[in-house]
């Protein structure tokens, strides 16, 4: 799990400019901290799509995380890939690069800091995270459970005797 942000950061460093233009790619920290100066300007942002796609008619909300923060991205649904993979437990979502207008406090969306997207590109596909988990924890758990049950039985019997 700890490797995910590293993979994302490396991915961001490798592709600094989206194909559609020559604007620099901003990080989530820059978008938040420089929201006043970047307000209503066109920016490029890149990260992993996480969680859910929240549909709103012809548009949809995506949460795009660069490993530090997830930024709310408002996308026309025709720009969404049909098989968009969403990041969840043990699954890394698709990495997308988006170009759009940053709103520090969006008038259409109750003051949310969001990005209204006009261009979306999937830069890499999501994939299941393959990790090996130690099976011996089941054995430890089984042993502890057994002892705990014996302990409960001991306390119960002691209680019955004293009653």
């Amino acid at each position: 799990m700890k490797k995910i942000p590293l993979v994302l950061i490396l991915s961001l460093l490798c592709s600094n400019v989206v194909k559609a233009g020559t604007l620099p790619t901003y990080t989530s920290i820059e978008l938040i901290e420089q929201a006043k100066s970047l307000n209503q300007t066109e920016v490029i942002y890149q990260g992993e799509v996480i969680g859910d796609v929240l549909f709103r008619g012809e548009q949809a909300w995506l949460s795009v995380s660069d490993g530090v923060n997830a930024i709310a991205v408002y996308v026309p649904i025709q720009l969404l890939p049909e098989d968009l993979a969403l990041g969840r437990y043990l699954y890394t979502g698709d990495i997308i690069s988006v170009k759009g207008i940053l709103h520090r406090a969006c008038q259409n969306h109750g003051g949310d800091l969001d990005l209204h997207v006009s261009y979306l590109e999937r830069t890499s596909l999501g994939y299941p995270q393959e990790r090996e988990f130690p099976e011996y924890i089941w054995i430890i758990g089984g042993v502890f459970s057994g002892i705990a049950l014996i302990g409960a039985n001991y306390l119960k019997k002691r209680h019955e005797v004293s009653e």
Partner: protein
Amino acid sequence: MVIEKPVKRIYPMLYFIGIIIVVLGCLQLVPLVVSLIYKERFISSIFLATASFTILVGEGLMAIGYRYRSTKLSFGEGTVVAAGAWLLGTMLCALPYYFSGSCLSFIDSCFDVMSGLTTTGLCLIQDMDHLSNGINMWRQTLTFTGGQGMVVLALTFLTKDQSNAYKMYVGEGKDEKLFPNAVSTARQIWKISIFYLIIGTVVMTFAARSAGLAWDRAFLHGMWVYMSAWSTGGFAPMSQNILYYHSSLFELCAVVFFVIGSLNFALHHAVLSGRVSEIRKNIETITFTISFIILSSLVTVGLMKNNVYPDLLAFLRKGLFHLISGQTTTGFMTVYAKQFYYEWGDIALVAMTIAMLLGGSACSTAGGFKALRIGVIFETFKTEVKKLLLPESRIVEYRIHHIKEMILSDSLIRSSFLIVTAYLVTFTVGTLITLLFGYPLTMAAFESASVTGNVGLSIGVTSTSMPLLLKITYIIMMWLGRLEFMSIFALIAFILKGGLKK
């Protein structure tokens, strides 16, 4: 507070601490079931191991103190049990976070557990957006249990000892008696909470569904956000917190539940018993409303001065939402932490800091000074001024309405001043320590108020990269704030006395 013979008296205390630890172990079965349902094999194995280990530790303590279980505890010892159980319980409950790799270190794990149990809501958990359902369930179970009180939970199910029960109940920062004895009161607190849990989960599930989540996700998110809202906790399943849902309906439902959660359990009991007018007459609701009106005016001025939000809806969804979230000590957020610092301006931030310190009602899931104490202090000042204006021969009584008409006793006035002073000292020390690590004053005061009041709103100080000493300071501050100081002072006195005896 005099505690005699600490070494010998430790056995009955260990027995009661053991009971509470066993309950905390059993609680880990909840996320175990969830992780099994969602086929999270690794997480299931972790919870099986940690739950049985925690139960084992509890049973061990019970066995050590078993022979002395009928010994009557003093008030001081009852409070030591509560504080001790919180300390040991925090370390044991941190094991699932640590072994699952959800937190970077054991201190981070303890921070998150203390934050959950105290219903603070600040978190150091890693990669929240990829968290398993089992771990998310554990976070919310901790918050929900912490809101009602882990001692309250243990009293509900595992003890019939009325005398010792009340002393431990008080030690956990609750002193309201809904019924003549503590066990019945504890059971009533849980009945009220379970009643709202069912209603809240249904409502929040539909709200999450309307926000666009699939039914299964809507149920889990709805239940978790409800558990956090009712407990005035502030944990949410996604890193964007409540902003993730982009839904004013979802936000509104959350506000309703966290406001209800911040009300006194005695008030809930009165209302559910048919005395609805109590809401209007109660000193806590009056104090909360007046202070909220004053502080919301300040936030409005501050945000308007800086031209932060473009229209009324945005102001309501951001400005007022965060003020209510702060004053009820919930900590749900719909902005990014750093936006407070970069956009809100000093006036709004000072108002938010005051709101977080004031807090919700006594004997509720909320933190802070508590509206009852503010009301008592205000009434004391008012009556003192009135006394000055009346002839000396006139006797003036200090009166308030809290569930019933009551004359303020000297001890209530004294304890109100004492606890508010203790909160202020903790807040000041926390602010100073944060300043020493190089954070600006506004940030330091905001975060310190949030930690002291068990709120959970962050201005960006709390992160995995913050200094270790600051993490430990915040853990202690959360603990102090939740147990309202006296139990922890009693525990420290007990440990020091025990050491001296040796």
